[in-house]
């Protein structure tokens, strides 16, 4: 039975998420443009407002007032529904993510999470973020445009491939905390830097970050919407507010995975010096919130920096990275984790194991990729055999 006492914290948390995430999305586009400009030795947007800070607002107003074109050839019900589905899934997945410091057990009063104490938290999140592929796939399919459909198909394959390493990589974290509840996972890590999950599971952190990045459809994994190949991919036929919804879903995903990376692997709101219960003092609470947001901002910065650093994968490379790289690595990591945990060995064995696995992968990859590309002898061999199979004398 929901009473007012349990309802108002929920409403406030929802209000914060619904208000902050779109604004954060708008400002992330601004920061991204600035960052892109700086990396390319330019200045970036600096005309609207002081330092160009109102550029995001201007962009928002512009795009909301834009004409919404619905092309005649689309399948209208699905076409209209798709961006909404995408955004709903993105927003739903953020509901189990604590966006501020919170205790392991839900406390009465305001909590910085929409759905506190969800015992299937991480599972729910993985399921919902998997669903968000529907927005893209339906959008691309309903557009009745071959490029949009290509984008949707690519997105489909990408989601299926990268869901697996994503799920494999978080198992270690779950095992360490003994819970799927994200607040408990965070509180299982301590304020000391050494107790964060990333140190004893560096490989899992890497796998998680990589596959989560692929789930967000951002460079270098933005094949569903790559401009050079597919015009705009799944959102080619979308304009105005519907385009914004897709766009917002993407940025919400970025926010979610940045939060998750920090919460699962980098200790969340924990920081050396911030000991004791989460909500004991207001100062500590605010500091922890600052620490969490700072870490998240760093991760978002890394994601943006990666976008302007790495070129896009070719599609076969994208699939190869998932199926030949991340999934076997994730499996091996999981096996190692099972051994370490069931034998009750020190957690630091996992660190060594992760590094060893990474080195092994590099060696295998170096050996096989040279073979695949082929040296002179291996490449000229089929040509020679082809020459001999050509009919001697010929039919000419």
């Amino acid at each position: 039975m929901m009473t007012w006492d349990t309802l108002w914290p929920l409403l406030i948390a929802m209000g914060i998420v619904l208000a902050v995430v779109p604004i954060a999305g708008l400002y992330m586009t601004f920061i991204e443009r600035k960052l892109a400009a700086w990396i390319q030795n330019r200045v970036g947007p600096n005309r609207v407002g002081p330092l160009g800070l109102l550029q995001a607002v201007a962009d928002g107003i512009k795009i909301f007032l834009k004409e919404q074109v619905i092309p005649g050839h689309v399948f209208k019900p699905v076409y209209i529904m798709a961006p909404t589905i995408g955004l709903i899934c993105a927003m739903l997945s953020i509901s189990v993510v604590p966006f501020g410091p919170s205790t392991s057990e839900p406390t009465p009063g305001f909590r910085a999470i929409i759905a506190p104490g969800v015992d299937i938290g991480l599972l729910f999140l993985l399921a919902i973020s998997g669903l968000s592929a529907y927005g893209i796939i339906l959008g691309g399919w309903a557009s009745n445009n071959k490029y949009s459909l290509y984008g949707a198909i690519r997105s489909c394959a990408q989601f299926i491939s990268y869901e697996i390493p994503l799920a494999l990589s978080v198992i270690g974290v779950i095992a360490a905390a003994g819970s799927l509840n994200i607040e408990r996972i965070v509180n299982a890590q301590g304020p000391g830097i050494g107790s964060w999950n990333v140190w004893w599971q560096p490989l899992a952190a890497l796998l998680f970050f990589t596959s989560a990045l692929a789930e967000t459809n951002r460079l270098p994994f933005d094949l569903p919407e790559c401009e050079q190949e597919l015009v705009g991919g799944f959102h080619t036929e979308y304009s105005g507010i519907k385009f914004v919804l897709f766009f917002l879903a993407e940025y919400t995903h970025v926010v979610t995975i940045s939060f998750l990376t920090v919460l699962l692997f980098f200790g969340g709101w924990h920081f050396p010096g911030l000991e004791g219960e989460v909500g004991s003092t207001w100062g500590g609470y605010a500091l922890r919130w600052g620490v969490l947001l700072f870490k998240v901002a760093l991760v978002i910065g890394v994601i943006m920096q990666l976008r302007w650093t790495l070129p896009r994968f070719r599609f076969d490379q994208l699939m190869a990275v998932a199926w030949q790289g991340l999934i076997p690595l994730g499996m091996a990591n999981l096996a190692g984790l099972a051994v370490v945990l069931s034998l009750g060995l020190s957690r630091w064995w996992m660190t060594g194991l992760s590094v060893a696995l990474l080195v092994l992968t590099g060696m295998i990859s170096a050996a096989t990729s040279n073979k695949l590309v082929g040296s002179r002898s291996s490449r000229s061999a089929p040509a020679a055999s082809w020459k001999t199979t050509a009919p001697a004398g010929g039919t000419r």
Partner: protein
Amino acid sequence: MSEVVESGAVAKAKPEKRVKWAEPPQIGFAEALYLPAIVSGIGTTVKRIFGKNETRQYPEVEPEIPPNYRGVHRLNRDDKGRVKCVACYLCQTACPANCITIEAAPAPHDDPNWKDRDKFPATFEIDELRCIYCGMCEQACPVDAIELTSIYDLTGMSREEMIFDKEKLLEVFDKTSEGGKDPVRTKRGTLGPASEILNEQ
């Protein structure tokens, strides 16, 4: 089938020795691991963030225009303040875009100021939208009356106002020659024979 045989024959005709094989670079351990390359790439982009910007803040900072820039035309005045043009039609003839229209008229002989001149342009129009700014009119002019200035940001609200008549072109001269940005180029090098005659008179 015949295609295969044909290309097979071509391959046979070329001796293997002359074929240069381009070897792809061997992928080492670091490249196969992706991570070192990604880290060094991020290092490059981070270094760029703190590098010098190349942007010129245009409306506030104007570019330095070289003295031989070919911008909006002007009609030069001589030392008596008259239009220097002698209406010889050379620029109109030379113009590849046909944007110059001149109507010549006999110089007003009753005016003592115009005693040394036979003809002068009654009208002189340049369609600035049609012009390709090649500078051939400037080259053709025997008396260095028409010149291109360094005005590069010509804008207008209608086609009509972009057709510059004689008064407007003389105005451009008054505006640009005073600022010192566009000195009269006539003193450069040797002049055409016609202007020599003018100078002697």
